[in-house]
């Protein structure tokens, strides 16, 4: 950027603690075309002022030296002008204080170390920040929307024609999108079509109704925007959002279609009951699964399988092969409702009949507590917590069930005509890839094992996102759920799919950096085919050619910069984020000479959770060491080892990386960023040791957005640890 304007806000304590004129001078020295200071830049007058000055000076970039980038981003937004934000308020005046050992805050003019007042240090920090911002803008290139070479498709592919798939198809079509619906079986309807009835999906959630599926099927079949493939499977998907090429296998022939986005709603299979012989299945007469019983009920056949005598008593064993490490370790969430519903079938069929439900915990999700309550009121339904210890053949073809640890405090023996095992759901993705992606990282969604095979992800705030951009899971393949939840889920997934299509059309990132038009660009001339980028990309955005060069699919990319951080050749760069940029920023800072008495620390802080937590700390006026400089990064995954090298050779005594928590319950917005950064920093530490430097000089800490006290403490402790070391010997080189 050629013409850079610097605007310094004097409000919110900035003028009180900083010397504005000195900052203006520094900005000019660093090469700013125009420098202004004014109170309340975020006000209407402030914004008009900036706009006027942009026009007057023909500025192509502005550095707003005021508050954090996390606030007022809507105000400091100017057409076709690059904006960088210098956080003087949260980053300096609200977060750096001279705190005495006794805990009181001293005057800024007090001497901090011999010959240096705290104000001097505060100004040194502010000046570094202004210099860094100008250096950044000097290297900045204006991002342009990404447009794939081929035409974008806005068709939505829905895999699975059950309640979730049908709903997703209807909702997408209603929003005006073309839909292709692929169903593996010969008929639409999935599981719900095989049911006699289900719990009502509207208030008061107390009754059972005939399956709603026929209504959904007729809506789908009548909709001109929905093209249906029955008895078909998706055999291959390649490309990326907006440009997916999908092969559909139908009657032995393959048909290729182009779609923009995929909704995965392939559903579940019931757990294999043959593994439940300890509950009598397959060994004792008149023991069936809830799926089998549903079929019997639908056929109007409420009789004992062994002798076709009417069922006068029935017993449901909840959690059969569920919440059990030897079978399904999780709760399938629908089974308590299903058993209550099936008990109702029996009770409605014969008012003298009895239905027993032996549960571990009754779990009727959400408002379906109403259904549970209404069934509880039936005098013929008997519920107890308990552990079934024996299922055996009783007299007259009855099944004898022995239950321990009951609410009666005693062991019970119950003899019934039929035992129903409430078996759980197994997502289709647990057994097959379903999607059959032509991706370098494999045909299925990654990390399914964490979610027991469900096409779920650990995105706490983004429930529909999978780790494959443009592919959204809905229904019982996503999580175990009820029909009502599946309908909700499908609507959400359809909405996410549409958002994705819009983002792709506009040429910006899909998620979570939805404002971001920049994307990684690869200078393959220097590529050494090391495959780090293609292996480490958390979203599988990169394929490889036969020579192991990366083939980027930008519409799959989420702009985390993990590839950029991984690349040892530094050939991957964004227009607004590059190795050169960060290097220039580091170089622009002022490093005191050896023996100055104070150290300098550099922190690379993740914008997603760590930076907000520091901002919140500033709102609470928590004090950070004045010696630490912060460079916000899009993800710790985007911290290239070159940054560390540059900072060390500049003379920084310690380098801190602050990012999201990783591991099993990771909170990283880009899944692997902080974890990969940690691995990379371990390698850096080895290098430091070879140079006879303390490996602790480069430290990575993780934090959650709400861990305000902890994050401040971690930074302070890091500062204290570094002060225990000698000065960085590279200082002043």
């Amino acid at each position, binding site marked *: 950027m050629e013409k850079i304007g610097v605007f310094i806000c004097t409000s919110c304590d900035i003028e009180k603690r900083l010397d504005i004129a000195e900052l203006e001078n520094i900005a000019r020295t660093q090469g700013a075309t125009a420098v202004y200071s004014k109170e309340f830049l975020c006000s209407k007058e402030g914004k008009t002022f900036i706009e006027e000055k942009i026009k007057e000076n023909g500025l192509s970039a502005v550095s707003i030296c005021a508050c954090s980038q996390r606030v007022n981003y809507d105000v400091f937004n100017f057409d076709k002008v690059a904006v960088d934000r210098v956080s003087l308020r949260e980053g300096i005046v609200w977060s750096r204080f001279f705190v005495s050992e006794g805990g009181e805050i001293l005057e800024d003019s007090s001497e901090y170390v011999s010959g240096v007042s705290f104000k001097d240090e505060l100004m040194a920090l502010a000046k570094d920040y202004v210099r860094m911002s100008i250096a950044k803008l000097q290297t900045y290139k204006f991002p342009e929307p990404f447009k794939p070479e081929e035409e974008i498709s806005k068709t939505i592919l829905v895999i699975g024609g059950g309640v979730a798939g049908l709903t997703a198809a209807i909702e997408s079509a209603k929003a005006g999108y073309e839909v292709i619906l692929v169903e593996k079986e010969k008929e639409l309807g999935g599981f719900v079509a095989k049911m006699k009835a289900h719990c009502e999906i509207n208030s008061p959630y107390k009754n059972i109704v005939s399956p709603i599926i026929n209504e959904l099927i007729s809506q789908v079949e009548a909709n001109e925007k929905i093209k249906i493939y029955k008895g078909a499977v998706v055999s291959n998907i390649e490309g990326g959002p907006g440009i997916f090429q999908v092969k559909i296998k139908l009657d032995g022939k393959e048909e290729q279609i182009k779609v923009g986005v995929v909704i995965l709603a392939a559903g579940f299979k019931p757990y294999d009951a043959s593994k439940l012989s300890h509950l009598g299945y397959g060994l004792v007469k008149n023991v069936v699964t809830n799926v089998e019983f549903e079929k019997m009920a639908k056929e109007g056949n409420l009789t004992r399988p062994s002798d076709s005598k009417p069922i006068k008593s029935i017993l449901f064993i909840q959690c059969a092969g569920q919440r059990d490490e030897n079978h399904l370790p999780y709760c399938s969430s629908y089974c308590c409702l299903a058993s209550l519903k099936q008990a109702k079938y029996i009770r409605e069929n014969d008012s003298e009949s*009895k239905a027993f439900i032996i549960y571990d915990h009754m779990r009727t999700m959400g408002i379906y507590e109403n259904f549970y309550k209404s069934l509880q*009121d039936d005098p013929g339904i008997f519920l107890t917590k308990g552990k079934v210890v024996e299922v055996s053949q009783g007299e007259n073809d009855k099944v004898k069930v022995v239950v321990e640890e009951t609410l*009666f405090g005693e062991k*019970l023996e119950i003899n019934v005509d039929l035992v129903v095992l409430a078996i759980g759901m197994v997502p289709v993705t647990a057994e097959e890839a379903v999607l059959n992606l032509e991706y370098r990282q494999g045909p299925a969604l990654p990390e399914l094992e964490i979610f027991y095979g469900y096409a779920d992800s650990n995105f706490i705030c983004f429930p529909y996102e999978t780790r494959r951009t443009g592919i959204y899971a809905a229904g019982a393949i996503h999580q175990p759920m009820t029909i009502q939840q599946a309908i909700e889920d499908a609507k959400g997934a359809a909405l996410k799919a549409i958002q994705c299509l819009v983002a792709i059309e506009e040429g910006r990132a899909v998620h979570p950096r939805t404002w971001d038009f920049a994307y990684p660009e690869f200078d393959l001339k220097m590529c050494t085919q090391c495959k780090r980028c293609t292996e480490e990309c958390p979203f599988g955005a990169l394929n490889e050619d036969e020579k192991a060069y990366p083939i980027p699919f930008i519409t799959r990319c989420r702009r985390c910069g993990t590839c950029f951080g991984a690349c040892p050749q530094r050939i991957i760069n964004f227009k607004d984020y590059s190795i050169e940029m960060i290097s220039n920023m580091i170089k622009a800072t002022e490093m005191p000479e050896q023996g100055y008495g104070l150290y300098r620390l550099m922190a690379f802080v993740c914008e997603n959770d760590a930076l907000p937590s520091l901002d919140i700390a500033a709102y609470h006026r928590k004090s950070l060491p004045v010696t630490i400089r912060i460079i916000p990064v899009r993800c710790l995954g985007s911290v290239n080892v070159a940054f560390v090298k540059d900072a060390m050779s500049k003379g920084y005594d310690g380098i801190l990386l602050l990012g999201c928590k990783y591991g099993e319950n990771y909170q990283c917005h880009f899944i692997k960023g902080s974890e990969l950064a940690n691995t990379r920093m371990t390698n850096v530490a080895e290098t430091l040791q070879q140079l006879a430097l303390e490996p602790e000089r480069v430290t990575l800490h993780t934090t959650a957005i709400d861990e305000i006290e902890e994050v401040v403490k971690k930074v302070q402790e890091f500062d204290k640890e570094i002060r225990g070391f000698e000065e960085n010997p590279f200082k002043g080189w």
Partner: protein
Amino acid sequence: MVKEIIKMEPDLQAIKEIQAIGADTLKKCYQCATCSTVCPLSPDEAPFPRKQMILAQWGFKERLINDPAIWLCHQCGDCSKYCPRQANPGEVLAALRLSVIRELMPFKFLNTFYNNLWGFPILFLISLFFILLAAIGTFGGIPNFFNAESFPYGGPSYEIWFLHLPARILMIDVVFIPLTVFVIIILLSAINRIWNFYLDTYKIPQAYRYKVWSILKVYLIPAIAEILNHTRFEKCEANKWRALPHKVLLWAFIILAFTTAIVFVMADILGFHTPWHPLLHPVKWLGNIGGLMLLYGIISIALGRSRAEVEKSVRTSYPDSLLIYLILFIGLTGFGIEIFRSIPSIKNATSLIYLIHLALVFILFLGVAYSKFTHLVFRTTAIVFDLYFKDITQKMS
């Protein structure tokens, strides 16, 4: 303790019966045990009413009969107030008590009459039948029920052995002495049964199964002291107001029973016949004090209940109302006789009021075995057992 396997065959009919006599909310319980936690009376070693709730939900009648806990409950309503499901454990236990009474007493149809509004006219006719039969027999034909001088103050007098009995006294004796004997016999037999059930349920070793006399001597006296003081009842929180009127009512019954006994001995046996002067005779004083206490107690209970119903800590079922109104009208008609007969211009109305009073007292006496009133006997038994059980557990350990 070795736990045996219980064969479950829930009794659907039993559940419906319990639901019909005030436990309609029974099935709403989901066994969270908030009730047992908040209950001020529930002992730690055998807490109630959580377990009684599921026993009742499954129609486990035998278990409930054998369980003294349902009688230890004084229906304070703490449980009902805190129940997160509005299962009203307090009311359920009240219904269970009624169902146990029904289970233990012979002639179940009588119980049915007491538990249903439609049964009341039948009970009234039954009592009237016996009283009229006795009146016709003792008065030598149908007396004039619109003339106080004919009934009750007319009719012949009888000299039997050394006894001197006017018709009105003999009429009372021939009805109420057999009734009292009948009620006492069936109650004693029920107490015997229930006591043995308790012994078996709690598996009391033979060595600790004391003789009746020593049980009465050692445990009945403290039990009665406790009952007279209402020590358990006063622990209740949600409906603290109930303890005092109930205590007053209990003392009123004791006083009235005492005066009745004096009158029986003095008049029926020794021949000092009534009417005694209402203002000068000390027995009359005592009787009037008892009557006033009865009215105070029962009216406070009725008013308190309607207040408590608003805040949902108590619900009143028909058997509750029956007992309240029965006692109320016995009190009112009792005073009515006293007032009417002392005012000459309306004295003749005394006959009908007296007749109604006697009929109501008949229903109450029979009700000692068939209505909510039976708690008098079974709660006492359960408290005695509770004291006995605590004592021997201490001795055994």
